[in-house]
């Protein structure tokens, strides 16, 4: 089949695959903060949840004044797991004084290429998420919670709906929770397919019933002006799923795992050319990419013992790394200066058989397709990048196209664009973040894979294009 439409992206042998395969979560001898119940087949039921300590974190929280709970979350430095890594406790503190009501919007729109963790958390342990939402609402004085689940996730929607129905019936959600004066509704909301809605201001637009287009900044945080113009906290599913454990065990126990700047654990998905692609809960801050890609407990090396060519360290928007960066840990303060970001915990691995320009195209096409169209550099630039790159991949490009790719990219995000340092090529890393001409990161994200691929593997592009035969208008010097 492959020969009909040119070369495959890479050779496609799949070592471990049976069908239908259980979604690939692998546990290990490591601390489990958010995945402790995944081993149970009925992990999503209230019965199992209560039998394994469920809702005791809520009870612990309600036994303290709200401000103390907020303080505990601040002390634990729970980093946001949606992509930006902003500490949740600090974010909750950004709401303006005396403006009511305030809302919680849960970001369950998981759709960044390579990212697979929030869906598992919603399908396998919905009560843990619900308990996390309640703790956040209590601590930050949020009077209603909207749990926004990605449209395409039918099973997650079913599991969360069932869990909410159980929790309401048992008095864990709704009026006078556990008999206290704490009352909050959690409303299940679901989308209808649009990646950009994951951006928090677009999420709010969508929740208001509009087209899901990001809002112009400032204000930078919806904590100031969000849903219906009210102070609104937007948190990722995994971020909130950390809170029950935190309330049960305390900030000291939480920060004892990982490093001071990246405490606790985080969920990562490793996909692509590894022997055991899967979702893992890893120790934050200390685990390295090498541990993850080659460790026995994790991915066990590159499939067929091939060479590693490159990997995307933090979701499709992240600049690529090469084997030179394998020893970096999951620590933003090191990954940033090395020219990329940890993003949403999505690692996509490319082995030596990978056709780099084509691999880059699958990402650029994604972002071009998902542009909401609000800003010209993204709407037009993304499409240009996709078209030019397609032409190059199809063998119809010229050497001028390669410069044009960089030029178009430059119009989306002017200035030096981040990429991995690669001593072999005599490059120095350009750290994130970048300057951009767009409202959100979708525009720059269309450029990131092109820029990384072209910077690190230029010869693969050059081999695909024809050199223009430049004929001068007049013969010079005659």
């Amino acid at each position, binding site marked *: 089949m492959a020969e009909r439409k040119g070369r495959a992206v890479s050779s496609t042998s799949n070592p471990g695959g049976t069908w239908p395969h259980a979604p690939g979560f692998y546990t290990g001898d490591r601390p489990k903060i958010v995945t402790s119940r995944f081993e149970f087949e009925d992990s999503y039921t209230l019965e199992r949840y209560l039998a394994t300590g469920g809702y005791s974190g809520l009870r612990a929280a309600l036994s303290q004044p709200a401000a103390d709970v907020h303080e505990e979350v601040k002390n634990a430095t729970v980093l946001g797991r949606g992509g930006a890594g902003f500490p949740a406790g600090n974010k909750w503190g950004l709401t303006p004084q005396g403006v009511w009501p305030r809302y919680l919007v849960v970001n369950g729109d998981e759709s960044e290429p390579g990212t697979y963790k929030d869906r598992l958390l919603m399908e396998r342990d919905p009560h843990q998420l619900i308990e996390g939402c309640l703790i956040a609402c*209590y601590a930050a004085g949020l009077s209603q919670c909207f749990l926004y689940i990605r449209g395409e996730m039918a099973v997650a929607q079913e599991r969360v709906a069932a869990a909410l129905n159980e929790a309401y019936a048992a008095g864990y959600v709704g009026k006078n929770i556990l008999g206290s004066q704490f009352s909050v509704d959690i409303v299940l909301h679901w989308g209808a397919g*649009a990646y950009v809605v994951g951006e928090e201001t677009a999420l709010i637009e969508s929740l208001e019933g509009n087209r899901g287009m990001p809002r112009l900044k400032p204000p930078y945080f919806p904590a100031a002006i969000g849903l219906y113009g009210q102070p609104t906290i937007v948190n990722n599913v995994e971020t909130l799923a950390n809170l029950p454990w935190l309330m049960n065990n305390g900030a000291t126990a939480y920060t004892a795992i990982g490093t001071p700047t990246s405490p606790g654990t985080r969920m990562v998905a490793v*996909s692509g050319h590894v022997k055991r692609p899967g979702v893992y809960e890893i120790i934050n801050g200390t685990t390295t990419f090498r541990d993850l890609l080659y460790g026995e407990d994790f991915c066990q090396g590159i499939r067929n013992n091939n060479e590693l060519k490159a990997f995307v360290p933090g979701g499709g928007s992240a600049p690529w790394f090469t084997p030179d960066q394998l020893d970096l840990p999951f620590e933003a303060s090191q990954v940033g200066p090395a020219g990329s970001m940890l993003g949403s915990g999505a690692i996509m691995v490319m082995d030596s058989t990978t056709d780099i320009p084509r691999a880059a195209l699958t990402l650029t096409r994604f972002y071009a397709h998902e542009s909401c169209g609000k800003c010209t550099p993204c709407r037009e630039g993304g499409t240009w990048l996709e078209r030019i790159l397609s032409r190059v991949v199809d063998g119809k490009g010229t050497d001028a196209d390669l410069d044009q790719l960089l030029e178009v990219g430059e119009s989306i995000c002017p200035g030096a664009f981040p990429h991995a340092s690669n001593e072999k090529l005599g490059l120095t890393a350009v750290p994130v973040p970048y300057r951009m001409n767009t409202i959100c990161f979708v525009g720059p994200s269309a450029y990131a894979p092109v820029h990384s691929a072209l910077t690190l593997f230029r010869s693969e592009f050059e081999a695909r294009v024809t050199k223009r035969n430049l004929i001068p208008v007049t013969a010079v010097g005659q």
Partner: protein
Amino acid sequence: MARLTEDNVRLAKEIIGRYPKPRSATIPLLHLAQEQDGFITNDAMAHIGELVGATSAEVYGTASFYEMFKFEPVGKYLINICGTMSCALMGGEELMHHAEDRLGIKMGGTTADGLITLERAECQAACTEAPCLQVNYRYRFRVTSENFDTLVDQLQSGALSDEIPPHGTMARVRQHIPADKGVGAKAPEDVSEGPAWLNGKAAL
């Protein structure tokens, strides 16, 4: 064509009641309409507009932004094959070629019997299980050509009709907030004070 049925209007009103502003229910109600008819009709959009206080043009403006809403009939089963990076690295594009051959249609097309529509989708949050696809948003993981053929056989014979409802039906469990348990939504302008539990004391 179809406005929402009486039962669905009852459901729609329950959904609208959960939000501080009715318009927030637009997308859930569009899903309800798509569940009823298999796609979104003009009448349904006008009806939704009446229910949430928007014009049908505004409802269409919202609906047309989102990939999942279809404005023309599609197959009973919508097969979405993921085409984003992790799946492409594991043979997603080859799977699409195979699917086109097996079904005798091109990406975006529907089989002559109206049973199956084939589309390319973007990352489905199952990247470790590549290549993957969804049938009416129910997953199949690590799909080989043979798996795909089996799937098509099963869809044709009706063997999967319990697991996979017809296009339009998403979650088959709906949230229901019992009247005596819920707090109830209030328009933001009707709330002027902070929540009672922020009084410096423990709630329990």
